[in-house]
C-alpha cells in the first residue's frame, strides 16, 4: 500500500452564488521517494485537493463531501483534531507559494523554525529550546542559508524571497516528515532562484526518501521534478500517468492544449521594423528613488538613493517590438514608466519622434499621452472596479477629443471587436470577467486612443498558460493591424522570445546585453544572460531531469 492513497475526494464550496464543486472525484496515490505533480490552471482544484488533506480549508464555505485519504492507513479526512495536529507536526509538511507572506513578519525565523519541535503535540517527540535551536541551525545550513547561527535571530524581512523559501523548506523538514506538499513553491520567485530552489527540493527529497506532492501550473517546472503527473481541470482529473507519458505521448485533449500553449521558439510573425527611424530615444536615463530606510544624515548622499534605473540608453525603432527582460528589482518596470513620464526622471532625456518629452510640462505632455499608452500587469488592479467596460473604454476617447456623443457608441463597439470581446458585455463591471477577459479590456483601453507606442508591463504574467497564449496572439495581431511600436517588459524569457524582434537584458538598473532575439538566444555574450537563459525550465522531462541532476 502506498504512503498516501486518495480515493474519490470531493470538496464542495457552498457560496452565496451557489455550489462550487472545487474538487470532484479525485483519486491518486503517492509513495515514499516519489514525486507526484498536480498540474492545472487556476481554479482547477489542485490546491484545494492538497489543503483538504491537512484540513487547511476554511469551513464553511468548504465542505468535504466524500472520499477518503488514507495516510499510513489512517483517513486524514475523518481523523480528529488531535490526530490531525500530530500529522501536521510530524508526518506531513507543506511549503507554500509566496514566501513573502507565508512567514510571520513579527517573529524571528529561528523561533518560527523551532515551533514544530518545541510545541510538538506528541510529547515524547517534543524537544527543549536549546536542542531545537541546534537542529534548526543545522537544517538552515543544509538548505543553504549562510551563517545560520547569526541568521537564526533575524526577522523575515531581512531575507530575500529565495532565502525565505529556503527557510520555509527548512521549517517543513524540521520534524523529518514522510510527505512534503509543495504548493507552487517557485511561482513567486525569479527564474534563476527558481532553478536553485527546485534543485534543493530534489536533493533533499532524494536524501530523505520522502514523498512529495508538487502543485504547479508550470509544465516546465513539473517536467524536471515529477515522477508522475496528474492533470486537473475544473475539479476533475483529466489525465494521470508517468511524466514521460504525459509529456511525450499524451492522448488527452486538455493536456495537449496545455502543452501547445507554452510559448516556445522564435517569433513567427515577420519583423515590421523600419530601420533608421527611431521612435523612442532614451539617453543616459537615471531614475533614483529616495531610500527612506536610510537615515537622512550620516550616510553619504549616494547611499540615500535606490538606483532603479542607472544610466540607461536605448532606442526603439518604428514598428519594432522590443523585449525588456529582467528579474524582480532589475528596474525594468521603472524604466518603462520613466519613458512614459509616469515615474520621475532624475537625469537624462527621452525623445519621442525627435521631441524631448522629458523636458515638457505636465500640461504640454497631454497630447503626447494620447500617442503612448501602457498595459499593466495585473488586470484585477489596473481597471477601476466602479466603471463599466463602456466607461473605461469611452473615457480616453472623450478626454482626447477622439469621439463625440454621436460616434462614441460605435467606436467603443469597434474596440470590443478589436480585442475579441462580445459587444453585449459593455455594461458589465470588471469583476464579472475572467482574468484573460479583463486583460483584453485593459488592452482595449490602451489602444483606444490609436497610440503609436505601447509599453506593456508584464501583460500576461498574471494569466494562465492557455489564456496567456491567446492574449499574446491578440497583442501580435493588434501590433500588426494598428501599426504599433511596442516595449514588451517581462520576466518570462520564453514569452519575450515568442514576441520580440530585439531584446534588452536588464539587471540592477543597468543594461547587461542587447541583441536581435534569435542571435541573443543562440550566443549570449554576458554571463548573466547565459545564466538567465539556462534557468528557463522547458516542458521536456529528459533535458530538465538532466539539468536538475547536474545542479543538485
Amino acid at each position: 500500500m502506498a504512503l498516501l492513497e486518495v480515493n474519490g475526494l470531493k470538496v464542495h464550496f457552498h457560496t452565496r452564488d451557489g455550489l462550487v464543486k472545487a474538487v470532484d472525484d479525485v483519486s491518486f496515490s503517492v509513495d515514499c521517494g516519489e514525486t507526484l505533480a498536480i498540474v492545472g490552471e487556476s481554479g482547477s482544484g489542485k490546491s484545494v485537493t492538497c489543503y483538504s488533506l491537512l484540513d487547511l480549508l476554511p469551513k464553511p464555505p468548504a465542505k468535504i463531501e466524500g472520499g477518503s485519504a488514507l495516510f499510513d492507513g489512517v483517513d486524514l479526512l475523518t481523523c480528529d483534531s488531535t490526530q490531525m495536529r500530530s500529522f501536521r507536526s510530524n508526518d506531513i509538511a507543506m511549503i507554500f507559494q509566496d514566501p513573502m507572506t507565508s512567514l510571520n513578519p513579527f517573529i524571528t525565523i529561528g523561533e518560527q523554525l523551532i515551533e514544530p519541535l518545541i510545541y510538538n503535540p506528541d510529547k515524547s517527540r517534543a524537544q527543549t529550546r536549546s536542542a531545537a535551536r541546534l537542529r534548526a541551525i543545522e537544517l538552515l545550513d543544509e538548505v543553504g542559508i549562510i551563517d545560520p547561527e547569526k541568521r537564526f535571530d533575524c526577522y523575515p524581512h531581512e531575507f530575500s524571497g529565495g532565502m525565505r523559501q529556503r527557510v520555509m523548506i527548512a521549517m517543513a523538514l524540521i520534524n523529518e516528515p514522510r510527505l512534503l506538499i509543495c504548493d507552487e513553491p517557485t511561482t513567486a520567485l525569479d527564474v534563476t532562484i527558481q532553478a536553485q530552489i527546485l534543485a534543493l527540493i530534489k536533493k533533499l527529497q532524494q536524501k530523505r526518501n520522502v514523498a512529495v506532492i508538487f502543485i504547479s501550473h508550470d509544465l516546465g517546472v513539473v517536467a524536471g521534478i515529477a515522477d508522475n503527473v496528474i492533470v486537473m481541470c475544473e475539479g476533475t482529473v483529466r489525465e494521470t500517468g508517468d511524466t514521460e507519458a504525459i509529456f511525450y505521448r499524451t492522448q488527452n485533449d486538455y493536456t495537449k492544449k496545455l502543452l501547445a500553449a507554452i510559448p516556445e521558439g522564435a517569433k513567427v510573425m515577420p519583423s515590421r521594423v523600419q530601420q533608421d527611424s527611431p521612435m523612442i530615444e532614451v539617453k543616459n536615463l537615471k531614475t533614483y528613488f529616495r531610500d527612506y530606510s536610510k537615515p537622512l544624515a550620516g550616510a553619504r548622499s549616494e547611499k540615500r538613493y535606490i538606483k532603479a534605473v542607472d544610466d540607461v540608453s536605448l532606442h526603439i525603432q518604428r514598428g519594432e517590438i522590443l523585449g525588456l527582460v529582467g528579474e524582480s528589482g532589475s528596474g525594468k518596470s521603472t524604466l518603462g514608466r520613466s519613458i512614459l513620464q509616469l515615474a520621475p526622471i532624475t537625469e537624462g532625456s527621452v525623445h519621442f519622434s525627435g521631441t524631448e518629452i522629458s523636458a515638457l510640462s505636465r500640461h504640454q505632455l497631454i497630447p503626447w499621452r494620447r500617442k503612448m499608452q501602457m498595459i499593466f500587469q495585473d488586470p484585477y488592479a489596473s481597471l477601476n472596479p466602479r466603471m463599466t467596460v463602456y466607461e473605461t473604454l469611452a473615457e480616453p476617447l472623450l478626454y482626447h477629443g477622439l469621439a463625440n456623443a454621436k460616434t462614441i457608441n460605435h467606436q467603443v463597439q469597434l474596440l470590443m471587436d478589436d480585442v475579441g470581446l462580445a459587444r453585449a458585455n459593455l455594461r458589465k463591471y470588471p469583476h464579472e470577467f475572467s482574468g484573460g477577459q479583463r486583460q483584453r479590456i485593459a488592452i482595449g483601453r490602451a489602444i483606444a486612443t490609436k497610440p503609436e507606442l505601447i509599453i506593456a508591463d508584464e501583460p500576461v504574467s498574471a494569466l494562465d498558460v492557455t489564456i496567456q497564449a491567446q492574449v499574446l496572439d491578440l497583442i501580435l495581431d493588434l501590433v500588426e493591424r494598428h501599426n504599433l511600436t511596442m516595449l514588451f517588459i517581462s520576466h518570462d524569457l520564453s514569452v519575450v522570445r515568442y514576441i520580440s524582434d530585439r531584446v534588452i537584458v536588464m539587471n540592477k538598473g543597468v543594461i547587461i546585453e542587447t541583441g536581435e532575439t534569435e542571435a541573443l538566444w543562440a550566443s549570449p555574450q554576458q554571463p548573466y544572460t547565459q545564466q538567465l537563459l539556462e534557468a528557463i525550465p522547458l516542458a521536456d522531462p529528459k533535458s530538465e531531469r538532466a539539468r536538475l541532476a547536474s545542479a543538485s
Partner: protein
Amino acid sequence: MFRFAITRLLQAVPVILVVISITFLLVHAAPGGPFSADKAVPPEVLKALEAQYNLDQPLWQQYMGYLGDVVRGDFGPSFKYPGRSVNELIASGLPATAELAFYAMLVALIIGASAGVFAAMRPNTMQDYLPMSAAMIGICMPSFLLGPLLVLIFGIHLEWVPVSGWGDAPGDKILPAITLGTGYAAYIARLSRGGMLEILSQDYIRTARAKGLSESLIITKHALRGGLIPVVAFLGPAFAGLVGGSFVVETIFQIPGLGRFYVQAAFNRDYTMILGTTIFFATLIIVFNLISDMIAIWLNPKLRQQGQGDN
C-alpha cells in the same frame, strides 16, 4: 526611535502655538468677561480688577505676556478662584482624573480586546454576533445613562459598591471606571475584531496551522501582536480622551477631578483657566499619540530596526 520622538515633539510646538492663539482669540471674542456678573460691580472696582489681571492692556500685549508665562510653565492666576493659580488647580484635580482614566483604560482594554479576539475566532457565528452586539450597545450608551443605571443596580439595589465618592470607601472606584471605560471597551472590541480578522486571514497563519500548532498558540503567539496594532494606535487618543472626557462621570460620582474645572472655567469666562486646561489637554493628546505611535513601531520588527538605524 529617539530621533523620531524628538522630531515629533518639535513638530508639536507649532501645533500648541496654534491651539493657544485660537483659544486666546476665541475666549476674548466671546461676549462677557470674567468679572461680568448678575450684580452690578462699581466701575472703579472693575477697573482695579482689570488692572490687576492686566486686562486693561491691548490684546496683543496680553497675548505676548501670556505666551511668555506659558513658556516659563506658568498658566497664570485663576480669575474665579482668587489667590489660586491655574497650575495649582490642575495639579489638584489631575491625580483623581488620571487614576480614573487609568482604571477605565484597564477596563476598556481587558473587556474590549478579549471580546474582539473572541469574536474574531469564529466570524459570523453567535460567538461573533453576541459580543459585537453588546459592543454596539456599549458605544450607543451614553455615560450619563449608564452611570446612574449602574448606581441604581449595584449601588442602591444590590448594595455591592458605594454610590459615589473617590477613595473614601472600598470599591468606590469600580463603578466610575466601568462607566467611563464601557464606551471605549466597545470601540476597542470592534477594532481588535477587525485587526484579528485581518491577521487571521494572512498566509502565515495558515503556515502556523500547517505546522501543527494549537489554535490557542496560533492566536496568542502568531496573531495577537499584529492584530492588536490598530488597538495600540487607538490607545493614545483614547487615553487623552478619557482624561479630557471624564467630566460627566466625575459629576455623577462626585469625584474631585479635572473635568469640573474645565467645564466651569468655560461658564465662568475664567480666561486663564480655559487656556490652561486647553493647553494641558492638547499637550496630553500629543504626548499620548506619540507614545502609542512609538509602541506601534516597536511592535513591528521592520520599523523597529529602521528606527534603530536612525539613532
